[in-house]
């Protein structure tokens, strides 16, 4: 390929990667707090709520994210002639972000639950003896310890999320894999080249490298109890 062609390719990949990043950050911003709510619902002493959450966890974690994307984007239109998303790129992004937030929130909730469970029951008992309410114990005693405990498994999920965003191409969201793949078929006078698709790996590696550094640093900063 000529230098001009490479500049076309990298422009397309940059635009695609911006969409990937947008989906990544929106998913994290939505799924981190939503996961907390789901975890609280799961641990609720009100049994039906806990059962409902367990059922939903089974469905969301047990079914492919690709199918969840398809159902969320095409389902309302096909089943009820209702078109909440619209056909444009913005609508596809909203649908993809919604599916990713819900899916990741259920995974996060289970990680949070593991983090809470790792805190010795003695701390809760001590808090109760001191006259703290359960809400106070949760926010003032357990939450920060939980954050420390869950950081390594959360880092795992976050890095997986970067790559999972590529699933959204199933509803034609133009993220970086879509941007690279179109040159395989032929676009902008460049045809049948697999190199642009292979170049997307570089973007993923660099971004995940930065994330790993950031997350490791965060882990170190939070290890002040030791």
């Amino acid at each position: 390929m000529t230098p001009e062609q490479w500049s076309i390719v990298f422009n397309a990949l940059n635009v695609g990667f911006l969409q990937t990043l947008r989906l990544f950050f929106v998913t994290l911003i939505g799924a981190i707090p939503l996961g907390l709510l789901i975890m609280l619902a799961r641990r609720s002493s009100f049994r039906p709520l806990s059962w409902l959450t367990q059922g939903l966890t089974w469905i969301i974690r047990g079914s492919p994210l690709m199918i969840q994307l398809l159902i969320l984007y095409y389902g309302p239109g096909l089943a009820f002639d209702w078109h909440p998303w619209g056909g444009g790129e913005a609508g596809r992004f909203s649908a993809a972000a919604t599916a990713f937030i819900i899916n990741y929130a259920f995974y996060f909730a289970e990680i949070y639950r593991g983090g809470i469970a790792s805190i010795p029951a003695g701390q809760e008992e001590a808090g109760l003896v001191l006259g703290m309410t359960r809400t106070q114990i949760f926010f003032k005693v357990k939450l920060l310890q939980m954050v420390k405990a869950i950081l390594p498994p959360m880092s795992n999920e976050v890095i997986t999320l970067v790559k999972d965003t590529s699933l959204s191409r199933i509803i034609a969201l133009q993220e970086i894999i879509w941007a690279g793949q179109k040159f395989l078929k032929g676009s902008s006078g460049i045809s049948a080249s697999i190199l642009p698709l292979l170049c997307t790996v570089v973007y993923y590696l660099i971004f995940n490298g930065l994330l790993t550094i950031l997350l490791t640093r965060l882990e170190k900063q939070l290890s002040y109890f030791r």
Partner: protein
Amino acid sequence: MLRKVEMIMMKKWMCLILTAVLALSAVGTFAAEVDADVAYVQEKGVLVVGITDFAPMDYLDNGEWIGFDADMAKAFAASLGLKVEFIEIDWDNKLLELDNKSIDCIWNGMTLTEEIMGATSCSKPYANNAQVIVVPKDVADQYQTAEAAAELQFAVEAGSAGQSQAEAYGFSFTPVSAQTDAVMEVKAGSSDAAIIDALMAAAVVGEGTSYPDLTYTIGLNSEEYGVAFRQGSELAELLNAFFVTAWQDGTMQAIAETYGVSAAVIAQE
């Protein structure tokens, strides 16, 4: 004997009644002003066209979609007083996109297959296409007939018109996920030949492409391109009428000339 005559009489009567009912209902729908789908699109004011990046039919030029199909779609929308919006779709999901109303038509060098015509309301064919055999240049001379090609191991896009042809001719073939993958198989030597669209072959193999040492030989069939609208939509009829006007005033020929597809375009009368 008498019975038979009676039966024939009865059939005649039933035919008459049915015709009358049909005629009345036709008048009925006519009286009920515009078709629901036409009304839906007119209310939006935008005709949303589902495409893929597919030169010379729909492709990007300085951020704008152009091509034979894109330019015709713009002209058609303008004739109805509509704006036009092009949306890139995943070709596998084209029927889903149409039913989901995230697009209003599929207009992207689409082969009119029985599956498509059964599931949508299609326009009349506007261009010819064929499925051709792609082989390395140095052996092309040996495979100028379907009989000679029968000994080859083919790669075809799964579910494509190319696969239908491979099946029809009884070729031995491997289904792959895209037409371009089929071509890559030939280049890599994992398959002897591929079957793909003639229009695509012209763009993808030969001099000045990524596969200068490949070429295409015979066409296995002939097929036609059309535009698909939602099942029952009268937009298909409106487009047929537009094609005729555009052919008569020469717009269609001029656009075809611009994109070098004149030989493929079908006259609209």
